[in-house]
């Protein structure tokens, strides 16, 4: 009797753990996703309203003040000509990398656990890039003339300077923004069709979904074209992703500043981006699972466990690159670099340096090795948040703190943030606001991909053991 119970409960246990083994009729899943979209409580609207107010004041109003008065209201000076604006730019581009990692790299490697949250992650990419765009436009002295940097024929007869890493930035970020938005939209089409089918006529939502669904039905041709495109996108967007943050790192690596002119910045920044991005994904998933209806079915502790494993590996890789950069600078003996390293650790902002190491390395290594802890959503939320804090510290150290120490000691001066704090808060509020709006407008879970995965998974007995098997349906 006990044996019999053990067998069935093992299977039941597997089904409870794994979304892919716990299929529901597609109609039911569709209904759950639509319900999650349509259910809004007063708490949602309260937070939404608050965020909208913050965005209006901290982002748009304060930016207007800065445009009218000049960058003097910010904290940038000689020698820290770049401050929190660039920190935030790099930060948001970093966060955007998580989306591509999950929807592209995990897809290429056929990691099935990605299925329910690829869209949630891809939304982070698009919205994160919007905030990065805001941050980079903010830092310009004459932002109203920024269109001069666009590489299109113009009546001034001048093209942008392609020797400059900032021009490469423009091309790379535009490519990445457009690509990831397209990659977000393509697998969204079948779910928009589903939303269209489940929305009654006569509402603005029906018009919205019908227009965006483009008349998708699910014919053989449509699926073939779509899947072909998704395969191309998944493979092609990976090098784009790597190149984008490498190019952003070259804004610093191409400069002659001590501490900046490091050849390892390329991969160091890419891994740093993945680090903060995965931390942000896990935060978003924890919130979505906790606040939206029916999400506990789709997003399970197994997903947090899998992401937690990735976070641990990425944290180790980040530690490797950080140490590599550090020891080469420390060993070299160049007096300016030595002064800079000393300033990082023992200067007035030394607490930030230690905080970075604790948040990026110590805490993930202490917590993420344990499978049970990895499967706890709220714990991973905290770890993710601390990782993001640590990574923001890392970029703050690289930009304003490193700029303080240069080869002209007469100009050394500490950077004190000004209006950038407001503007940074504004971008954060805008990110959350956009995400909340999207969660109510489009289905957050790609149900067709979940069903596809569930079709491919089954339980098979090997001897006395029941094991999960995955068929390759493509």
């Amino acid at each position, binding site marked *: 009797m006990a044996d019999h119970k053990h067998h069935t409960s093992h299977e039941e246990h597997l089904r409870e753990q794994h979304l892919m083994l716990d299929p529901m009729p597609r109609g039911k899943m569709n209904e759950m996703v639509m319900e999650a979209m349509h259910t809004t409580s007063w708490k949602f609207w309260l937070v939404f309203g608050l965020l909208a107010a913050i965005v209006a004041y901290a982002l748009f109003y304060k930016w207007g003040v800065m445009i009218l008065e000049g960058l003097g209201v910010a904290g940038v000076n000689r020698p820290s000509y770049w401050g929190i604006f660039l920190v935030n730019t790099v930060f948001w581009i970093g966060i955007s990398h998580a989306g591509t990692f999950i929807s592209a790299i995990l897809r290429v490697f056929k990691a099935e656990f990605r299925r329910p949250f690829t869209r949630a992650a891809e939304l982070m990419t698009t919205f994160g890039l919007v905030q990065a765009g805001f941050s980079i436009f903010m830092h310009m002295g004459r932002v109203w003339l920024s269109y001069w940097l666009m590489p299109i024929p113009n009546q001034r007869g001048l093209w942008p300077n392609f020797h400059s890493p900032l021009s*490469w930035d423009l091309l790379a970020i535009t490519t990445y923004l457009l690509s990831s938005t397209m990659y977000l939209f393509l697998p969204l089409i079948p779910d928009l069709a589903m939303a269209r089918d489940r929305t009654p006529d006569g509402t603005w939502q029906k018009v919205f979904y019908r227009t965006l669904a483009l008349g998708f039905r699910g014919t053989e*041709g449509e699926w073939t074209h779509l899947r072909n495109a998704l395969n*191309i996108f998944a493979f092609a967007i990976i090098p784009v992703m790597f190149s984008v943050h490498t190019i952003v790192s070259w804004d610093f690596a191409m400069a002659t500043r001590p501490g900046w002119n490091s050849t390892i910045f390329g991969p160091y920044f890419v891994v740093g981006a993945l680090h903060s991005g995965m931390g942000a994904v896990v935060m978003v998933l924890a919130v979505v699972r906790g606040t939206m209806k029916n999400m506990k079915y789709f997003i399970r502790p197994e997903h947090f466990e899998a992401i937690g494993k990735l976070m641990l590996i990425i944290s180790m890789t980040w530690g490797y690159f950080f140490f590599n950069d550090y020891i080469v600078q420390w060993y070299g003996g160049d007096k300016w670099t030595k002064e800079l390293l000393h300033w990082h650790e023992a200067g007035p902002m030394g607490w930030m340096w230690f905080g970075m190491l604790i948040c990026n390395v110590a805490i993930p290594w202490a917590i993420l090795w344990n499978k049970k802890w990895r499967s706890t959503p709220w714990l991973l939320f905290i770890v993710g948040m601390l990782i993001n804090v640590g990574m923001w510290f890392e970029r703050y150290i690289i930009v304003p703190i490193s700029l303080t120490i240069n080869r002209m000691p007469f100009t050394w001066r500490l950077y004190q943030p000004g209006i950038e704090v407001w503007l940074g808060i504004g971008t954060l509020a805008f990110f959350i606001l956009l995400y909340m709006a999207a969660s109510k407008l489009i289905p957050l879970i790609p149900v067709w991909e979940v069903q596809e995965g569930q079709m491919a998974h089954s339980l098979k007995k090997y001897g006395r053991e029941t094991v999960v098997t995955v068929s390759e349906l493509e």
Partner: protein
Amino acid sequence: MAEEKSLLAVFSDIDPAADAIEQLRLLGVHDDCMNVISGIPVTEAMLGRPSQWTNVPRLALGGAAAGFLVGVFLAFITPNMYTIQVGGQPFTPVPPAVIVMFEMTMLGMLISTFVGVFFDSLFPNYRPMHYVPEISDGKIAILIECPPPDTQKITDVLKKLGAESVKEAEAQHL
């Protein structure tokens, strides 16, 4: 003018649908007259259908080539239109050009892939089409566009194989 009636048979599983397609072929319905509309991508091989061609890879390649040419233009031709000396570097150095060409190639490839889907699938398509909303609930529907005159026989066969519903397909606004 004889009205071309189309039949739409809805199945909920792959096996009955595959059997149905085989039976329809035996009943004389040509592969070209059949179309499978489904809520999840079911490969043609699973249903015994001929492979669907797609232009998307070719368009992607063409887009990549176009993007590459744009990159070459930006990196090598624009500096020579108005030469400006900066930093002791040659007017058209190769390493920065590589970056520009790479990004433009990828952008060209991805935009043309995206547009290729629209182009091949004839999106956006807001005309009335043969469809039933149950399809997005995971059903597999077989659209028979030129059925033989004896539709009752086909209907019986399909119902016997497990079709949830077999009816005349109406072209409706989605």
